[in-house]
């Protein structure tokens, strides 16, 4: 029950990040203190990644933040059952929230097109994933005292 409530809170934070809004570090305090010691790896991953994304956003120059938003659009559009309008246009992503992205299953070129960038440029996604992975590992160790279990799966 508590894990569901915590997940809802995390999702509300994700929605704000997807919209490009800022989240103060202090707003996360409740999430950490209530995260159970026996929380699942998925819960831990969700929490740590959320912290890492919020932290990463603060490090980025305002003119570069579109890259993070594009990555979030991309990852969260892969959720839910595929359900996109017959006449889907990337411009409709402006102002999109978490529920708007679910089920769209966007390709990276579609996301880049929606941001008005070169559709075939994968470098922003690669760079963000690399930087975030390093942050996730750092915070995972700081919080749980060991390497994230997904490390082996995400290495390539």
């Amino acid at each position, binding site marked *: 029950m508590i894990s569901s409530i915590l997940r809802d809170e995390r999702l509300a934070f994700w929605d704000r990040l997807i919209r490009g809004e800022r989240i103060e570090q202090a707003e996360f305090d409740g999430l950490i203190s209530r995260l159970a010691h026996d929380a699942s790896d998925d819960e831990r991953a*969700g929490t740590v990644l959320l912290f890492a994304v919020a932290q990463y956003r603060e490090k980025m120059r305002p003119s570069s933040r579109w890259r993070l938003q594009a990555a979030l659009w991309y990852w969260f559009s892969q959720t839910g059952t595929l359900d996109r309008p017959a006449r889907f246009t990337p411009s409709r992503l402006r102002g999109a*929230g*978490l529920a708007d992205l*679910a089920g769209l299953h966007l390709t990276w070129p579609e996301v880049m097109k929606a941001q008005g960038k070169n559709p075939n440029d994968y470098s922003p996604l690669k760079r963000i994933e690399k930087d975030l992975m390093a942050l996730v590992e750092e915070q995972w160790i700081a919080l749980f005292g060991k390497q994230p279990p997904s490390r082996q799966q995400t290495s390539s």
Partner: protein
Amino acid sequence: MLEREHAGDDFFVRTARAETAPRHYDAHPAEQELLALAGGDIPNDRRSELHAHLATCEECHMRWKRIHAYLQKEAVALDQRSVAPSLASTIRKRSALESRELPWWRALWQPRAIVTVASAAAVVALTLGFGIPALQNSSQRTAEHIAALSSEIQILRNQVQWSGMISNGAIVPRITEELLNRYDWDDSITYRVEPGDTWQSIAEAELGDESLWPLVWFMNRDVGAAGDEIPVGTDLLIPSDVQD
């Protein structure tokens, strides 16, 4: 060929999927709240809470998609219904209608024809009534009458020419799209007519361009014909400046 797409085993996509995995809720947002959310009329905190619910409640996500689709359909329909013809297109249509050939009995009742016929009748009347007797008088009186006749004819000719300015297209084609776009013809302000005002002076004073007077008259054609004096105190509609 795409360089790379995630197959679903990626940490980020996998985490996003785990975070949004469907779950059971005992309570669901009301239809009104979803409508307010779609309209952007909801506080940001509540907006994000609702999105969290919608992303993990399959039933509500379907409702959300339906509401979105419905609103978009309505927005398109509303757009189509609310497209009113612009003043410029109305004028073009009117101009086209007026330039069509009319049956002779209807053409007789056109203002231009009336003035033409009246001027011809006046010439005949003046000729019969004053011209012939004048010939019987002194040569001086004859000369005076001829001068008077010439003057009358000139006035009538001017009237004929002037009355045709609106419908014969002599002025309207000078009004360009660029000129029209300077003003919002659907958003008008009121101008109260003062002594000595003419359509030209009002267009010059209010729009900064005398040549726009036919459009100002057209907007207020209920006031009277283009050649009539505008009653003092009449409230006229004037297009507002686009930059206002």
